[in-house]
């Protein structure tokens, strides 16, 4: 179990993290989700031991590792830009963590070679061991970085924006693949992302962060359906904010024949399986987005229609 207790970190005058508490169960897949500047990467780096907290403690299985540097924490870290060693072959990159061990802990040359080949098979790069990172595609480099991190048999896997540098299609494939890999290996993993879709799809639990604090920790379902704060509601999924303070998801709004609030329709377009209707509340110009089931007749642009919320949330400001 990983336990983070009251972690505070400042960079000069800027407070990056304020009193973070977090517990992670063995085998969990955790997403640290937040906008840039929320402190999510700093928290990940502190858990790794690449950065050190000003206050607070980090415990791995009850052992206080707060002052232990990254090399002795036995964590696998996958960097956002992969940080592959350009002058080494893919196989040498993967074997690096084993090759730098002290002689008495180092497996034999043949064992190291076999391990590297095994790992390349696991990340589906069999036969590419002799290539150099420069000869691989982005998605392949990402998997080399992962294999390299796994080679040291870490007790915890940390990934910083693992899909950030990839294009949309590769990102989606790799996401599914990583989820399956996690299921197979059962390795406790934490990844940082600013993409709520990624967090909701992959993680067992999502930690939503803003301005160096945790706003909510919960399953994807909880975070989406029962956001704890206005920030979470707004950041995770789309939300309409009404002037009276209600937060309503676009799919929780419906067009009704009478009795709702009037909006002037500005735009209507197909958004995948639904119609997306954009309009402005009569009288105060608040922009409202709503999703209308595909089998309904969408309103015409310029028309005024009435809307009602099936479900809404309000937050104490």
């Amino acid at each position, binding site marked *: 179990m990983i336990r983070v207790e009251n972690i505070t970190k400042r960079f000069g005058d800027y407070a990056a993290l304020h009193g973070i508490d977090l517990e992670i169960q063995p085998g969990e897949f955790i997403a640290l989700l937040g906008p840039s500047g929320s402190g999510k990467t700093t928290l990940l780096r502190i858990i790794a031991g690449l950065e050190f907290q000003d206050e607070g403690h980090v415990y791995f299985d009850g052992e206080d590792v707060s002052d232990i540097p990254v090399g002795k924490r036995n964590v696998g870290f996958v960097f956002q830009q992969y*940080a592959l060693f350009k002058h080494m072959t893919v196989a040498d990159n993967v074997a690096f*963590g084993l090759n730098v061990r002290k002689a008495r802990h180092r497996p034999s040359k043949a064992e190291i070679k076999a391990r590297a080949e095994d790992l390349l098979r696991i990340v589906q790069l069999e036969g590419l061991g002799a290539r150099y990172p420069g000869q691989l595609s982005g998605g392949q480099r990402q998997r080399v970085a992962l294999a390299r991190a796994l080679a040291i048999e870490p007790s915890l896997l940390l990934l910083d924006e693992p899909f950030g540098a990839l294009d949309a299609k590769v990102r989606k494939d790799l996401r599914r693949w990583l989820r399956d890999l996690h299921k197979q290996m059962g390795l406790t993993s934490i990844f940082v992302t600013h993409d709520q879709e990624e967090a909701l799809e992959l993680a067992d639990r999502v930690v939503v962060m803003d301005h160096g604090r945790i706003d909510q920790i919960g399953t994807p379902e909880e975070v989406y359906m029962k956001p704890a704060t206005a920030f979470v509601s707004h950041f995770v999924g789309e939300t309409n904010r009404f002037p009276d303070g209600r937060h309503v998801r676009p799919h929780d709004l419906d067009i009704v024949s009478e009795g709702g609030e009037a909006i002037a329709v500005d735009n209507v377009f197909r958004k995948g399986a639904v119609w997306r209707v954009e309009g402005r509340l009569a009288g105060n110009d608040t922009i409202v987005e709503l999703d209308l089931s595909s089998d309904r007749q969408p309103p015409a642009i310029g028309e005024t229609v009435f809307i009602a919320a099936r479900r809404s949330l309000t937050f104490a400001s």
Partner: protein
Amino acid sequence: MTQRSVGTESRATQIVLILLALAFLAFFLLLPLIAVFSEALKQGIAPFLDAVSNPDALAAIRLTLFIAAISVPLNLVFGITASWAITKFSFPGKNLLLTLIDLPLSVSPVVSGLIFVLLFGAQGLLGPWLAAHGLKIIFAVPGIVLATVFITFPFVARELIPLMMEQGKDDEEAAVSLGANGWQTFWHVTLPNIRWGLLYGVLLCNARAMGEFGAVSVVSGHIRGETNTMPLHVEILYNEYDFVGAFAVASLLAALALVTLVLKTVLEWRFDLHSGARH
């Protein structure tokens, strides 16, 4: 029509500019270079060989090589250390260190030489103490080494700092997270990443170490066969109207410059190739 005339005009401008640049280069670089070699070989190959194999000339060549053999490795180590410290850590006084590294480039070499005379000379700050212990620095080889090290210390560091800045510290962090210690990280990760830039810096450092005149001239004392480096030897021969001798030794220095230029071009080509292979 108008388009065409603009096109021809810019073509003409191009040619004029290129010719101007070439003429400038020919006049200020090529012509002197040719002059050096033609003056050196004016009276045939025999006087040339005599001039460069004369004992004083040989002593100057030996001393120059000796000075370079000390100052280049020292600045290699210093350059890597300083660049590493500046690019991988943040510490108070970092900007001051950066400014100090540039100091030898912004100060006249003669002033640099004088600093050492003021420090270690007979009337200098440490002069009496050195004299009492029988140590001779100024007008001796140690002074020349000191002056050369001072003059050449920016070359490696200035080459590496922008390079290492651009590379960031992700690779080093990755190595450390995989369990590598500081030395392994440096040897297996940092050094291969900077090797071409480092070689380039060493080359420039070496060229300057062998060619430095001003600072060395101040601290050397010009003792023939003892404290004369090649550039100083050239000056002495020239002042004695031994033009063939002066140009013969000068042509060796010029040849060094040419070799440096070729190696530098080769390195740049490799360097580009290398960085081109990166994503």
